[in-house]
């Protein structure tokens, strides 16, 4: 066997799985976008691009959910990253009891996302949780109410849950990056009289910047698609205030049973994410040539 054939031999099982259970369903799913499904008779009718026109022309919820997706993604990412980076720096510096504390701090990442949703629903609920009373005590709220039923601020509920879940991911990625910086660089710098903060600014940050950027950008795609926490906590409500595109698709397909239109929204989201991913690929290329 030459190398070409060998490579395909090793890849065959993976390709078989992905072809049968991901690509074929994906193509079928895309084709739904051109059909209008009738629930009662169980038939579908070819409608061409009609549903795309509806999406672009008259769907206010879609526009709203796009804005919400941006807010959800950027806010979650910002806090996950800031706190995750801080934690990685602390863990990297080492302290007493780290071997017990580190696994404990990584636990949220192993918790199933729907459980995270349920858990935080209880935390925000005045009947079962302490948070409303905490908010009242520190003066954020006039009286202890459920944050999740306030259309103006409800999104902060799922964001809090998402931050709780996502900190360990950034900590793990950044901790690995921090540990791969050779110790000698810091020793040499210290001999030249470079102090702690300067070393952080001029050695640590530039060396892990590529990891930071790539992790942030890739994670953004993942968060934009991450609907489970929101579905469990608010189901997009109240008044669509926590509706992101991914939850809107779920709602359209499985509450309204409109598979055709759900597919149209999915394609729109996929299209936007692919543009983003393409730009990302270009940035990555530039960075590797630069470093």
């Amino acid at each position, binding site marked *: 066997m030459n190398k070409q054939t060998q490579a395909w031999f090793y890849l065959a099982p993976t390709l078989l799985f992905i072809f049968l259970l*991901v690509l074929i369903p994906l193509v079928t799913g895309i084709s739904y976008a051109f059909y209008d499904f009738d629930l009662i008779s169980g038939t579908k009718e070819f409608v061409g691009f009609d549903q795309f026109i509806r999406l672009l022309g008259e769907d206010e919820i879609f526009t709203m959910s796009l804005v919400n997706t941006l807010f959800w993604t950027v806010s979650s990412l910002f806090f996950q990253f800031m706190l995750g980076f801080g934690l990685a720096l602390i863990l990297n510096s080492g302290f007493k009891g780290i071997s017990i504390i580190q696994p404990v701090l990584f636990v949220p990442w192993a918790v199933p996302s729907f459980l995270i949703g349920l858990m935080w629903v209880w935390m925000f609920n005045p009947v079962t949780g302490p948070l409303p009373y905490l908010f009242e005590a520190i003066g954020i709220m006039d009286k202890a109410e459920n944050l999740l039923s306030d259309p103006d601020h409800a999104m902060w509920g799922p964001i809090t849950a998402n931050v709780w879940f996502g900190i360990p991911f950034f900590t793990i990625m950044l901790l690995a990056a921090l540990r791969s910086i050779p110790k000698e660089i810091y020793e040499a710098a210290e001999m030249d009289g470079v102090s702690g903060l300067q070393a952080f600014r001029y050695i640590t940050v530039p060396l892990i910047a590529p990891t930071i950027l790539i992790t942030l950008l890739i994670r953004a795609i993942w968060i934009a698609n991450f609907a489970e926490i929101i579905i469990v906590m608010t189901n997009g409500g109240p008044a669509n205030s926590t509706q992101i595109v991914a939850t809107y698709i779920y709602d359209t397909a499985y509450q309204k049973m409109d598979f055709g239109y759900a597919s149209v929204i999915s394609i729109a989201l996929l299209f936007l994410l692919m543009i983003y991913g393409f730009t990302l690929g270009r940035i990555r290329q530039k960075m590797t040539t630069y470093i």
Partner: protein
Amino acid sequence: MKNVKYPFIIGFLVFTLFPVFWMLKISLTPDRLLFSEGIVAWPSRITFDHYYAVLVEGSFPDYFMNSFIVSFTTAALVTIIAALAGYALSRFQFKGKLAIMTILLVTQMFPIVMVIAPIYNVLTFINLVDSLTGLILVYTAFNLPFACFLMQSFFDGAPVELEEAAMMDGCTRLQALEKITLPLCLPGIGATLGFVFTAAWSELLFALMFINRQSQMTFPAGIMNFVTKFSVDWGQMAAAMILALIPVCIFFSYIQRFIVQGLTAGALKG
């Protein structure tokens, strides 16, 4: 400077553990006290009734077993298949490599809800709706792309020279992979197993859509079912949730050091 970090560590610990503590508290609070005592840090009396109800009276032991079978089989299957693919992506230059990498990337981008109905049709076609085998196959397919990338980066980190030397001495490529390279990548394999196991253990949407029979439900689907049916039984729900947390937490705290190690090794080389 040294002591500045301790308040932060405590802060992180409180933020991480408080919600879990609160669930534990609710799971141990007798139903009567949950409402009469209001919001208190610890109930005046605790009970294990909810755990008893969940473990003995409900179907949770079945869900638990199903989840374990599905997660374990998926993790093993994905790791073996992804090891082969990751090896090919790391060691061979071949036509179509870029195309395959692109396909693997795109599979990570589209919303899962989009393919649920079509996959349901595929499963109906091969007669695997409502079966754990069907669920395992779907989980395998969806966990493969990320696992392939992960395994590829671990193989990139392992030296090619040893493998080539073994092949010079008469090993076939598969033997060299098995005897030399795989043992070197053990932390990476552990990390991949861990990732996939936790992902399969947590998955909800597919499990809800493809499984209808009670006896075949996984833990997440079982709990969601429970939530929709008995939405006011806080205590039992909390007990079920705490029980669901235990296996992943044990497994994950064991595996997390391999993940950091594996990623560090990968980063060093790249």
